[in-house]
């Protein structure tokens, strides 16, 4: 019993710490960062080798729309494989990536069908061994380039060989310093008000203020952290189904009054699953039509009807409960009636006879004033309390000071 509790405290602390650090740790390591005004830069470069062909050098700079993109295999939201662009510092030497240049429009084809091409910008493009033409719309290899096509040059599944992160000349305190970047250095371009954003060396111009420093893992892994949080919280979803299912199966076994509703519950789950599966079919199929029908005609109708039942409940309960029993209730009711009337067109009818001079006393204006001044201030008083309460609760949970169940 002792060790699971220690583990729980430990993981709770670490999980909380990660997300606190995620927000307060700056994007570059504080001690090892340098800041200055850019005088000039040498962009990063690398070579990529595919198979037995000689390694091809690339320079990460914008030359005639041909800035190389480094693409690594990933999954998209729907689970389909895709290539995602990655910064150079995240792919070290030895890793595999697809290098893509372009796109450009073909103006003229020179030589063989796939040999050399003149772009619309008048620049010659030719393939080196290991590279292929790729259609920019479909990203499929093209064997026969024609004028008018929009193409990429791609080196698929190449091994990244030598990496040079580049360098920059910075003006710091009146001195010019040549700063060579490390493999994991990020460049943050600073501006007057914004927090600064990561840039590549070739995007920097003379006069920009920049901060160089080793990347902290937090910024790079933000998306993974979000994904982890999402996956973990979603996994708890099944608990609700299971516990409701247990309640209903118990009803089916014990058969108390009204047990037959549980049969409908299980039947409805099957219908719901069918509707859920149909959601992912193509439009026009019958299962998709079934799914749409269930969602728009059944779920939507019932859930909005259930919510609207509350209006009836509330009308009756408000009538019966809302008797002035003390000064507090009277004050509350006064403010409630003004806000209710002020929000309807009747409010202006009732009081607009007072004329423009007394427009401050029109019901809608009083209602607006109540909401904007006393309500705002009162809510603010509450918010400050709630904020501190949330801090205290978060702290207690984070440091596992709270007893979470009565079992302990």
């Amino acid at each position, binding site marked *: 019993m002792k060790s699971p509790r220690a583990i729980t405290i430990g993981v709770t602390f670490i999980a909380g710490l990660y997300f606190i650090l995620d*927000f*307060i740790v700056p994007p570059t390591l504080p001690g090892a960062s340098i800041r200055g005004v850019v005088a000039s830069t040498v962009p990063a470069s690398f070579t990529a080798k595919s198979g037995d062909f000689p390694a091809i050098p690339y320079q990460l700079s914008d030359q005639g729309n041909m800035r190389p993109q480094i693409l690594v295999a990933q999954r998209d939201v729907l689970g389909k494989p895709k290539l995602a662009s990655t910064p150079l510092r995240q792919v070290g030497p030895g890793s595999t990536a697809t290098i893509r240049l372009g796109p450009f429009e073909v103006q003229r084809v020179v030589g063989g069908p796939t040999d050399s091409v003149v772009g619309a910008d008048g620049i010659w493009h030719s393939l080196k061994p290991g590279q292929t033409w790729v259609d920019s719309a479909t990203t499929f290899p093209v064997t026969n380039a024609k004028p008018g096509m929009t193409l990429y040059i791609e080196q698929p599944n190449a091994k990244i060989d030598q990496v040079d992160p580049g360098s920059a000349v910075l003006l710091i305190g009146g001195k010019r310093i040549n700063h060579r970047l490390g493999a994991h250095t990020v460049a943050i371009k600073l501006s007057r008000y914004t927090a600064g954003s990561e840039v590549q060396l070739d995007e920097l111009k003379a006069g920009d203020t920049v901060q160089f420093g080793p990347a902290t893992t937090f910024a790079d892994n933000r998306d993974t952290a979000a994904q982890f949080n999402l996956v973990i919280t979603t996994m708890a979803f099944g608990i609700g189904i299971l*516990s*409701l299912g247990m*309640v209903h199966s118990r009803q089916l076994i014990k058969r108390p009054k009204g047990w037959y509703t549980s049969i409908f519950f299980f039947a409805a789950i099957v219908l719901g699953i069918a509707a859920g599966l149909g959601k992912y079919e193509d439009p026009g199929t019958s299962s998709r039509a079934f799914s749409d029908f269930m969602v728009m005609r059944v779920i939507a109708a019932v859930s909005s009807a259930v919510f609207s039942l*509350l209006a009836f*409940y*509330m009308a*009756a*309960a*408000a009538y*019966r*409960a*809302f*008797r002035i*029993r003390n000064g*507090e*209730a009277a004050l*509350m*009711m006064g403010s*409630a009636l003004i806000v209710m009337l002020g929000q309807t067109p009747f409010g202006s009818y009732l009081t607009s006879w007072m004329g423009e001079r007394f427009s401050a006393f029109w019901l809608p204006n009083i209602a607006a004033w109540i909401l904007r001044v006393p309500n705002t201030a009162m809510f603010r008083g*509450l918010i*400050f*309390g*709630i904020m*501190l*309460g949330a*801090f*205290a*609760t978060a*702290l*207690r949970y984070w440091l596992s*000071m*709270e*007893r*979470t*169940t*009565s079992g302990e």
Partner: protein
Amino acid sequence: MILFSGLILWKIAVAKRNPEKVFIRRIAGLNAIDEAVGRAAELGTPILFNPGTDDFTSIQTLAALGVLAHVAKRSAVYGISIIVTTCKPIMVPICEDVLRSAYEAAGRPELFHASDVRFISTQSDLTALGTAALMVDRRVASSFLFGAYDYTSLLVSEGGQLAGCMQIAGTADYYQIPFFIASCDYIVMVEELFACSSYLSRQPVMLGSVAGQDFGKLVLLGLIGVGVLLSTIYGLGNPVNGFERVFTF
């Protein structure tokens, strides 16, 4: 952030070392609780307690359980039983546990068997209506509605009002408070609920954090005072607004 967290942690540490030293003022709602229990004793009817619509993962429910323990202790003195209704099956053993230990501590274990912890339905509105019906059927004299509430708050409290109960409600869900104000005799609002619970349970962690929050509020209040003064002198573009950068991450 560090300042506020530090204040809270410091107070918790103080409270852990010496819980007696931490002062929490007696909240008016507590007197009302004792009065309501006394009223039920006079009329000789049971008390109804509803711990809200959430389960034990909510701190409001935990605070409500603290109040339940207190109500059980008071009612043990007068020898009256308690009906608890809930919409979470998982709350049933927990409430039973609280009742049993409270009655045993007061030396009246037989009262536990006279009490009744009822799970009515997983749907909070059906539970609310069931609770309201129960109050009329059993002629409950006093009802306590503590914990997290959703839109069903008025359904429960209206039933209690029909039954002529003395009702005390406590919740931190501020959107439901107006309905309780309309229909209940006394309301323990927002943070009062937690303060109330920590006053009753004297748990050092809770006590400390309530005290720490108070110091935090004092700091905020001081800040607002300085800010109002400066902005009255300098107009809206006052130098304090430069603090924004200090505060935000």
